[in-house]
């Protein structure tokens, strides 16, 4: 047992810190810290800075130009980025599609798409979920019918995060109807410029535009855009779901939230004293911090286990449940902390010259609280995760 990082890991942390200090524009960090929506330009700028440094492909295999970061390195990188209020890396290309292409794509697909992911030329979004499918992903209905050199795709995807910025979408589509629902699913790469694709915004409960519906009407997709084999897409999708789970607990973001909340609670006054001195609030904060200290170690145990070659497996489900609940709790505490300033409810989608009248730290407290109700729902709801634990860990 050794809770200390190795000298190499500490050096890596310093390197990441130095990079963040040098390259993360303060105005972007300020946006992230205040939960202001980032523009596409903001994302692109940060994407390129990371790509230049080689961080974007840090976790990739060396044969694809990566550095084969260990799980602990990934964890350090994520933790430092969160503390510095760096924008999150939009994961769909770099962390989701790329591993699938690297494992199952053709040489041509790898050579063509991987560099474009790093360069930012392609912004990928994910076409998995469908209306009415929810956590029951395998019941998807979007159909792709082979006609000559093309698939003709019809159907609808939803919850497509940042689809408004994307020029490419990877989709699970139904190419066969026999057997179990998991069979007959294929993994297709689709250019968003293709005629017949329509992206419609979904405004979420926080008032913001983050996700979209994507409609497909007789969309022609070249057969060379099929990844792997027809009807075996479920295998690739599952690979993708289990591949990149070290960040699933979101410890970095939750810790950044705790630090921000502590600062906030020194500024916000109650009965003429800083809120941090209120014994009820201070007790909430302390209980939370105690749990976060434990969860951070729980996360590292799993992360270190992944480096030691143990598949994280159902432990990821535990981390997802606890991590999502704690992230939601810190958002809840922040909402409580800002007191009545949580009531003015402004989003960037609203019309008019609306600004939040309270202190900066209060402007997005309600929005963030509401927005993050999603994290116990998406990527397999916490109920689905409990089902996985029941079978895989408890053996019930």
């Amino acid at each position, binding site marked *: 047992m050794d809770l200390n990082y190795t000298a190499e890991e500490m050096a890596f942390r310093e390197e990441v810190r130095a990079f963040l200090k040098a390259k993360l524009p303060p105005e972007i960090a300020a946006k992230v810290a205040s939960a202001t929506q980032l523009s596409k330009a903001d994302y692109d700028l940060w994407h390129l800075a990371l790509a230049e440094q080689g961080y974007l492909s840090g976790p990739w295999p060396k044969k694809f130009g990566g550095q084969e970061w260990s799980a602990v390195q990934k964890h350090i990188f994520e933790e430092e980025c969160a503390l510095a209020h760096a924008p999150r890396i939009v994961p769909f290309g770099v962390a989701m599609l790329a591993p699938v292409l690297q494992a199952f794509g053709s040489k041509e697909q790898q050579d063509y798409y991987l560099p474009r992911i790093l360069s930012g030329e392609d912004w990928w979004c994910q076409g998995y*979920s469908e209306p009415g499918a*929810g*956590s*029951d992903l395998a019941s998807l209905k979007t159909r792709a019918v082979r006609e000559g050199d093309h698939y003709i795709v019809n159907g609808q995807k*939803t*919850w497509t995060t940042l689809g408004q910025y994307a020029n490419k979408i990877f989709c699970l589509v139904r190419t066969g109807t026999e057997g179990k629902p998991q069979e007959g699913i294929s993994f297709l790469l689709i250019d968003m410029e293709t005629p017949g694709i329509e992206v419609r915004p*979904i*405004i*979420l*409960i926080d*008032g913001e535009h983050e996700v979209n519906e994507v409609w497909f009407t007789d969309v022609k997709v070249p057969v060379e855009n099929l990844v792997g084999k027809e009807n075996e897409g479920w295998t690739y999708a599952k690979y993708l779901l289990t591949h990149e789970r070290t960040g699933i607990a979101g410890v970095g973001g939750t810790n950044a939230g705790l630090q921000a909340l502590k600062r906030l609670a020194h500024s*916000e*006054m*109650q*009965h003429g004293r800083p809120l941090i001195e*209120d014994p*009820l*609030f201070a007790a*909430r904060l302390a209980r939370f911090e105690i749990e976060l200290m434990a969860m951070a170690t729980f996360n590292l145990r799993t992360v270190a286990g992944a480096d030691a070659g143990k598949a994280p497996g159902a432990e990821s489900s535990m981390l997802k449940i606890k991590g999502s609940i704690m992230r*939601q709790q810190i958002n*809840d505490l922040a*909402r*409580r902390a800002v*007191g*009545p300033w*949580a*009531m*003015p*409810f*402004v989003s960037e989608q*609203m019309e008019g010259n*609306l*600004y*939040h*009248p*309270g202190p900066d730290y209060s402007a997005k407290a*309600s929005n963030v*609280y*509401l927005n993050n*109700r*999603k994290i*116990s*729902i*998406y990527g397999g*709801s*916490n*109920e689905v995760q*409990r089902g996985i634990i029941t079978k895989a860990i408890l053996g019930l």
Partner: protein
Amino acid sequence: MDFNHTEERRMLADSLRRSLERGADWAALAELGVLGALFTEDEGGFGGQGFDIAVIFEELGRAGSDAPVLEAGLAGGLIADAGRADLVERIIGGDLKVALAHAEPGMRYDLGPVSASVHDGHLSGRKSFATNAEGADLLVVSAVAQGKTALFLVDPKAQGVTLHTTPALMGGTISEITFDRAPAEPLGDAGTLEARVAAATLAVCADALGAMETAKAMTLDYLRTRKQFGVPIGKFQALQHRMADVAIEIEMARSALINLAGHLSAPAPTRDRHVSAAKNLIGRVARLVAEEAIQMHGGIAMTEEYALSDVARRLVAVDHRFGDEDWHLARFMKLSA
């Protein structure tokens, strides 16, 4: 002991519910007697008791109404306390919309101290969290004059009054108001402010109960119809048991509301003990109901388009109005010591 509402209140609640379903406007609410029911007979109305407020606001909360009824009772009540029967009559008739501008930045949930001040009949200062002040015909504003906090009437359209209005988390609007030597008519002292805020807190609690009932009904409906893995999700026992717990907590909230409504006219320490007990408990339950309703719905509840999002925000906002869970717990502890 009798836990049934009077025939009159039941009838008012029923007709209010039906009217709201049909989209009742302000005139319709006045016509129905909703505004009159906020005031006692002495004040020119025909209600004004805790249970009048309870039945009305439960329906407004159930329907998700944004009508400024709370403001009519709160600002209007202060106007009534000052003996301005002329104005109360116009409020009850639906001809005069009023709102209260009392809280200031930095007061958080406390009722004082107030910094705004009046000199030579003109009011200056900054007020926060004024709900539904946008569109009001008349503002009741607290300010210090001759060293004491008093209440004033201010025309929101008068010179020197600037509103910055945003949507409110619970629906309706919320305004920051700057007064820069705005003409102010003396209304009276602020001696009844606490009692009127107690009544308004009851209104928020009742509104929350109505919203909880809507959230519950929507969730049950969804659980019955939405299928996943081939069966309605309401057949999953884990959700059933959690929903049973939600239903129990809503009954607890209803019980706390009854306790408060039955003690609204009690002496201040008893009244406030019930205010804080109810607001604490209902704040807790409102959050539980909102979060469980969203979680059990899943993704669809996250969308603005689906009606639950309004209901959930309304429930989340409960804890931010007139003192949150901890503020009221601390007050309850003080009043119980």
